[in-house]
């Protein structure tokens, strides 16, 4: 494959995440699995793309905070928890699982940057 080819993968391949809720506000911390992936997060996990990913839940606001010292983003989405844990009718009223919706976001990663992530290591029997 050409050296600079970009491969589309779910964000999950290069980052992990944890969601937290306060009222109707969801925050998702997104953490680069390796420092070299942080630039991809900055470039592609934008407020616009996160707003589009959550468009079906009609966010009032989407903000992104950068934390370069820990190679992380903090995403703050207002109004996506259907009123929050005391009003929502969904099975996961806290929105705990929504960190994995964020990790479903497709991102393009240069092939040489992707290298070998732990999921690609040969499993040991």
């Amino acid at each position, binding site marked *: 494959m050409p050296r600079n080819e970009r491969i589309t993968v779910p964000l*999950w391949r290069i980052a*992990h*995440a*944890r969601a*937290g*809720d*306060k*009222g109707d*506000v969801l*925050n998702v*911390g997104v*953490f680069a*699995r390796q420092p070299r992936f942080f630039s991809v997060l900055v470039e592609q996990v934008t407020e616009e793309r996160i707003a*589009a*990913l*959550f*468009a*079906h*839940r*009609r966010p009032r606001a989407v903000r992104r*905070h950068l*934390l370069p*010292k*820990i190679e*992380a983003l*903090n995403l*703050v989405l207002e109004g996506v928890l*259907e009123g929050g*844990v*005391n*009003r*929502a*009718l*969904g*099975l*996961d009223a806290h929105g705990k*699982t*929504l960190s994995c*919706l964020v990790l*479903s976001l497709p991102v393009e990663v240069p092939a040489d940057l992707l290298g070998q*992530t*732990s*999921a690609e290591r040969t499993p040991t029997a």
Partner: protein
Amino acid sequence: MSEGRPSADLFLLGCGAGFSGDRTDAALPVAEHLARAGAPAAVVFEVLAERTLALAELSRRSGGVGFEPRLRAYLEPVLGLCLQRGIRVIGNFGAADPEGAARVVAQMACVSGWPGARIAVVEGDDLLADEAGRALLARHAPEAFAAGGPVAAHAYLGAGPLVEALRAGADVVVTGRVADPSLFLAPLVHAFGWSEDAWDALAAGALAGHLLECAAQVTGGYFADPGMLDVPDLHAVGFPVAEVTREGHITVTKPPGTGGRVDRDTVRQQLLYEVHDPAAYVTPDVVLDLTQVEVRESGPDRVEVTGARGRPRPDRLKVLVCHEGDWLGEGEITYAGPNALARARLALDVLRRRLPAGVRARFDLLACSAVFAAEDGSLPGLPGLVPDDPPEVRARLAVSAPTRALAQAAVDEVLALYTCGPAAGGGVRTSVRMRVHTREAFVPREAVRTRVRVVEARHAAE
């Protein structure tokens, strides 16, 4: 007891519980680790979620207990050891009845041979407890008294009254609502004598509390993703310990021999948990700036956290006001095998047509992206979220109703699917429960009067 420990430049914080439903066998390895380490130490139990206090208040009113119902289960394994070794015990397990919780703790101390143990009760968070509190709430949040009035209204106290209790020699500090990080900050302020405006030191202490307050969430709990993030012995995950220096240097670790992991990844995840603006994480004691925090592995299961910066504390305290809310009704039924998805959809169609008037409803196909979907069923624009032919599907109805009867009538329709719905539905489960609604208010901090009482166990156990 506590006099046996010299003041030092190092203090050890252990977390005994991170929420009301937490494990009760995890605090003992933490307390044993603190006892072995020998430095001044405290073990902290954080068991109050936002709604927990209102539920405790409703329990108290209907003749049940108003404090943490598992208080004994949490404390029994560790109380004797902590009293013997001078490890302070701090917990918000007082919930809506700190006095009642303190009586139980005092009885337990007497039974384990420590009638001289000093038990402190911190009060003042409950704004409905007296006229002054109610008037304060009415002045700053008049809407709290609309529509039936509040079930509970508690201010998030800071570390101040807890420090006062420790200075008075408390071995155990029982509180109601206190901001989670403040429970952990208090023993540090007491041990190191940090002043009320030592903002960077206070920030480091609040950060240690923030990292520990959800217990296993910083030691490998709520973290494992097999193949990507593996966690050894998750079934026996150890609860965290933080070693904090007088200068505010934090090392997060866990007791040896326990499961879990402490590394840069587990600590980074918890660092941003429930944080909005990382430059301004507000606690009653200090406004915390996390943007320059560095996280560095310094050994196996040891992570150093430095760089917390603090700004002056807020002038107002947050108050959580709770009201009796709606009735939530839920019902589920499973369809399996050939054409399962079509039968589940037909079941939801039947439920939709028979829904009583006056309820808000949601219809889900579990196994088909129910948790990502919006309330109206719409999905994110990603491919592959709904499988064509799932081997089994669980149809779910959830309703919000103004009365129990109406919620029950709606979920009874799920039960009726046994004989009146599509073929071969099974495994119906239904539930109806009242919910508590919450709202935030803010009051001037100096208007919230806190009270601290310290009593010997032998006198408090009556």
